[in-house]
């Protein structure tokens, strides 16, 4: 799998690097207190989403072994993480996912479980769903668009209808029902090379439309711009959209967004147990603070005020309101 180029393409030399942009605004991107542990349990996925920054899909074989998860849990016991966020690929499809959920939920007040929804629709996932319910996991589900053709164009034919069915099922279990205490949050990514809408307005509209059309309720909607990495970057390149999109992200740089970007308070660990400042740096194999560290080497919390590794995909997190 080829990695995206580390430097800006030749045709967009008229925008400066992310590091230079920070310097221009007298900003430094450093780690704050690390409150969230994000665990990527592998790149295997039943979908081949065109906006995926990880190139996840049915042909990927990377998968976290339970032994690696135990090493991560050993470290997590020494750090009071406010949240542990299980992601992938499709985490549902890791063969040890139920053991992994049971391993981590006692270590944090908030277990987050990311789902593409269609993986939860598979017939053998009922037990996992009941487990997630019993440990009060917050489900964060991808639902990019209220338009079927745009959603299916991004995520695969038929995924939109399946997603609606699974959201109704999650609601029936209590996820996203406001009086249940079971959280269901949605993530909406633009279906193309354009920035995401204002999150508050998008949440309001999704809430109205989904309730009216399907009776679906949810807690919050997060609206994120696509990060120019992985399969999405390849599409940007082949469709001729890369220069325009990178310029759009760079020109939308918001200095005020830097303080709140997620990498300041999150650490991401890959299926092999290596640390990254975020899932996007993981995609680019840009290790935590620029240094390759395995979780088994760690003795306690990560130091604050240490530099965060950056590259030009970081413009996606500082465009407009930012990616927090």
């Amino acid at each position, binding site marked *: 799998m080829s990695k995206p180029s580390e430097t800006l393409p030749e045709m967009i030399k008229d925008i400066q690097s992310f590091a230079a942009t920070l310097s221009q605004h007298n900003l430094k991107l450093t780690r704050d207190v690390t409150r969230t542990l994000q665990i990527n349990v592998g790149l295997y996925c039943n979908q081949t989403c065109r906006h995926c920054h990880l190139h996840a899909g049915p042909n990927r074989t990377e998968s976290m072994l339970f032994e690696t998860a135990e090493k991560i849990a050993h470290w997590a016991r020494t750090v009071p993480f406010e949240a542990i966020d299980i992601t992938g690929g499709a985490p549902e499809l890791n063969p040890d996912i139920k053991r992994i959920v049971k391993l981590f939920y006692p270590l944090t007040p908030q277990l987050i479980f990311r789902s593409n929804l269609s993986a939860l629709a598979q017939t053998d996932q009922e037990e996992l769903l009941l487990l997630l319910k019993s440990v009060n996991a917050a489900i964060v589900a991808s639902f990019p668009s209220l338009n079927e053709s745009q959603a299916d164009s991004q995520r695969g034919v038929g995924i939109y209808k399946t997603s609606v069915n699974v959201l109704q099922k999650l609601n029936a279990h209590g996820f996203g029902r406001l009086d249940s205490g079971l959280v269901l949050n949605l993530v909406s990514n633009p279906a193309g090379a354009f920035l995401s*809408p204002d999150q508050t*307005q998008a949440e309001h509209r999704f809430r109205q439309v989904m309730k009216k059309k399907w009776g679906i309720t949810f807690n919050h909607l997060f609206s994120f711009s696509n990060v120019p990495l992985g399969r999405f970057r390849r599409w940007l390149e082949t469709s001729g959209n890369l220069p325009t999109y990178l310029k759009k992200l760079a020109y939308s740089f918001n200095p005020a967004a830097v303080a709140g970007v997620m990498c300041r308070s999150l650490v991401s660990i890959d299926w092999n147990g290596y640390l990254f400042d975020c899932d996007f740096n993981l995609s680019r194999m840009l290790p935590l603070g620029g240094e390759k560290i395995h979780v088994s080497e760690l003795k306690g919390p990560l130091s604050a005020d240490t530099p965060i590794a950056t590259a030009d995909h970081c413009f996606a997190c500082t465009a407009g309101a930012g990616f927090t």
Partner: protein
Amino acid sequence: METYYKPEDLPKFDQIGQEAPDLAKKFFEYYNAVFAEGELTEREKALIALAVAHAVQCPYCIDAYTQTCLEKGSNMGEMTEAIHVATAIRGGASLVHGVQMRNLSEKVCL
């Protein structure tokens, strides 16, 4: 000049102020005020702009407001319906003048 319309000309719109800066300043202030959130949301105003852009057939406006509509969270279904509204009005405006044709014809025909 190989073409009258070039996408890279759109960001040069403000150059129109070079010969008449006061008028341009007034126009752009008004323009920005029009598209700010009011009784209508910015998303709704962008959909109206997209429809009007097609009615006046302005490639610059179609480029700008296609992107603005998407970034304000409108989807392809809504944007397509907005264009149909413009099309219906344009078509309807022609057709309703058929009444004039009928009036005149009735006057001169047996």
